[in-house]
């Protein structure tokens, strides 16, 4: 884990004191709402449909057990006992009082957390593969570079007022679990010609009202040049990005309008001016940061764990959980454990304070005190001994966190939607709940296999519907909630934007429509095909026929 140095501590505490003064001046009337709004947003505080909402940064999705306990404490003391993990690997509190926010930020600062870069037209909290430092397919731990980016981008004087918000995602493995191709900048680690680690640099991806897949503008960037190259991209964007039209202000529009090749040439020209200058990361700094992410003290274990295998044989429910919720660890005898925040009929991404405390305890007992937040709104315990998996699973069951559905039809991403969000046109969460209840039979869920459903309550696409195998977008049609369905989206290294399948469905018709789509897939799939494979092979027609034939 990265630990704050003296500079970080001082800076964050000064920022809390500064915001406390700003809140006091707002409450006393010295500051108008117009004056206060940008100040609160710079500290992650929004005013939503029902109340204020505080978005707390979880840089690259990495949390310690101590930090998780503080998040639980805040939920309990200042909120309504629960909080919401987001598709940006952050956590949101739905009910904080303005008068409490400085105290909340003070408590967060005590565990090296804050709410900076969670709003505004700056470089937002950087996201990364949740399996960082643990995955068997990893080339290098992306958190080292994500932390470098965090330090470089925090209050960057040149990039604090960009044309629009700016999101960077990093994956350290060829298999993309961080959706890097739908970010403003996506970085994918790979090996260069001499075997050295570096990055494929992709620019101009994004969702929202104009979804686009990022274009590769550099096949290989040596990692020591990461900051100067990012600086070059941001300079070009800062200069040429449109500030006259909020809907055309993201970098994806610029890259699309000038073309990826022209954009790349502009970046390369800018880079030539700063490459090798003090803009680069100082020598030794990357190695200093790397020490914070040194692997934990793994035991030397055999990869085979007979007790684990025996439990799987005798307990079919445990066996089912191990098939969906575990991922291969790089260290023999260990596994990566995914903790589903999608129980049947639950609110995707929500966790009660007691569950957060429970996860923190389990992280201490079984995973070196480490927890990750995934962009799919689940949690991960990254380093668990296989021999501990059965005991861990039993403990997760008692917390209501042992649903065996990672990557399945009920592991649904859903934005807060109209239940909480002032931008939303329709509800997202109840749609996810209906689908989750419709597919309550776990044997059926496991038979269906990998299927990613993603739901957004408005065109801003916080629920990533464009890249869902089945995407669902809530729209307002003459004062009623309707839902447009897309098929064939993909957030991974084979990223694709889904195709609209036909006219929208009313609120009460969405679960039926999803079931029809799933049943059509099951009837048509060939050996080993995932939903998205069948869709790519057959296109939308068979699904369209089933969905709309009776209309």
């Amino acid at each position, binding site marked *: 884990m990265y630990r704050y140095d003296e500079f970080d501590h001082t800076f964050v505490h000064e920022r809390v004191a500064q915001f406390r003064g700003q809140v006091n001046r*707002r*409450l*006393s*009337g010295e500051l108008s*709402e117009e004056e206060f709004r940008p100040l609160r947003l710079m500290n992650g505080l929004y*005013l*939503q*449909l*029902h*109340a*204020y909402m505080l978005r707390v940064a979880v840089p690259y999705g990495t949390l310690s057990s101590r930090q998780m306990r503080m998040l639980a404490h805040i939920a309990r003391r200042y909120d*309504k006992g629960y909080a919401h993990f987001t598709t940006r690997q952050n956590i949101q509190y*739905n*009910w*904080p*009082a*303005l*008068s409490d926010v400085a105290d909340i930020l003070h408590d967060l600062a005590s565990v090296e957390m804050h709410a900076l870069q969670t709003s505004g037209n700056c470089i937002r909290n950087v996201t990364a593969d949740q399996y960082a430092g643990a995955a068997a397919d990893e080339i290098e731990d992306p958190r080292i570079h994500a932390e470098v980016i965090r330090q470089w981008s925090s209050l960057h004087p040149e990039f604090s007022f960009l044309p629009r918000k700016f999101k960077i995602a990093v994956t350290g493995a060829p298999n993309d679990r961080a959706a890097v191709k739908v970010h403003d900048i996506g970085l994918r680690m790979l090996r260069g010609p001499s075997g050295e680690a570096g990055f494929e640099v992709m620019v101009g991806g994004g969702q929202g009202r104009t979804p686009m897949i990022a274009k590769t503008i550099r096949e290989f960037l040596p990692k020591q040049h990461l900051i100067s190259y990012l600086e070059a991209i941001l300079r070009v964007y800062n200069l040429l990005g449109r500030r006259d039209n909020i809907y055309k202000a993201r970098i994806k529009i610029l890259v699309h309008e000038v073309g990826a090749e022209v954009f790349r040439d502009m970046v390369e020209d800018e880079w030539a001016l700063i490459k090798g200058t003090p803009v680069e990361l100082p020598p030794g700094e990357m190695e200093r940061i790397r020490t914070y992410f040194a692997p934990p003290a793994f035991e030397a274990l055999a990869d085979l764990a007979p007790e684990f295998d025996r439990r799987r044989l005798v307990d079919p429910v445990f066996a089912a959980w191990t098939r969906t919720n575990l991922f291969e660890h790089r260290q023999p005898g260990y596994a990566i454990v995914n903790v589903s925040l999608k129980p049947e009929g639950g*609110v995707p991404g929500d966790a009660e304070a007691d569950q957060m405390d429970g996860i923190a305890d389990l992280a201490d007992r079984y995973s070196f005190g480490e927890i990750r937040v995934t962009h799919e709104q689940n949690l991960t315990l990254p380093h668990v001994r296989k021999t501990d998996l059965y005991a861990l699973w039993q403990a997760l069951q008692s917390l209501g966190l042992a649903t065996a559905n990672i990557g399945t039809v009920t592991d649904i991403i859903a934005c807060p939607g*109209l*239940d*909480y969000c002032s931008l939303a046109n329709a*509800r997202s*969460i*109840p749609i996810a*709940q209906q689908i989750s209840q419709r597919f309550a039979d776990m044997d059926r869920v496991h038979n269906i296999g990998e299927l990613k459903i993603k739901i957004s309550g408005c065109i801003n696409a916080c629920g990533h519907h464009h890249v869902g195998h089945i995407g669902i977008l809530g729209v*307002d049609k003459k*004062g*009623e*909630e309707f839902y447009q369905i897309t098929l064939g989206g993909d957030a991974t290294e084979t990223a694709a934007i889904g195709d609209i399948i036909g006219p929208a469905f009313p609120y009460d018709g969405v679960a039926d429509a999803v079931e029809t789509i799933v049943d059509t897939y099951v009837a048509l799939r060939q050996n080993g095909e995932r939903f998205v494979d069948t869709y790519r092979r057959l296109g939308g027609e068979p699904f369209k026929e089933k969905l709309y034939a009776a209309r």
Partner: protein
Amino acid sequence: MSTRKRKPGLYMATANRLVDGEVVFLATDGTWAEDVTAGAAVDEKAADDSLAAAERSADACVVVGPYLIEITRGADGAVWPTLYREQMRALGPSVRTDLGKQAGPSARRIISDVPL
């Protein structure tokens, strides 16, 4: 204060309370009620006056973001927001009926009259 011609009907001024963000509705006595059924529903001719009172309250740092919502009145005189977005805002999240306004008596009343 700008005035505009409004379509005939009932209106109510709403805002968020500054100190805690709570959704509130302007009552007849000029105070802010957390319960929409305690808010003052006024006709289109009085709507601008309600909004002006709400804006003065915002200037006095009591509330933030005041605006008018359309209101429906039932046969028994009970009022609720006409648009589902405003029903949601008046009630709290439809997915947490165990806490907040969703768990209150007026929520049950509104939900039974106008299912979300």
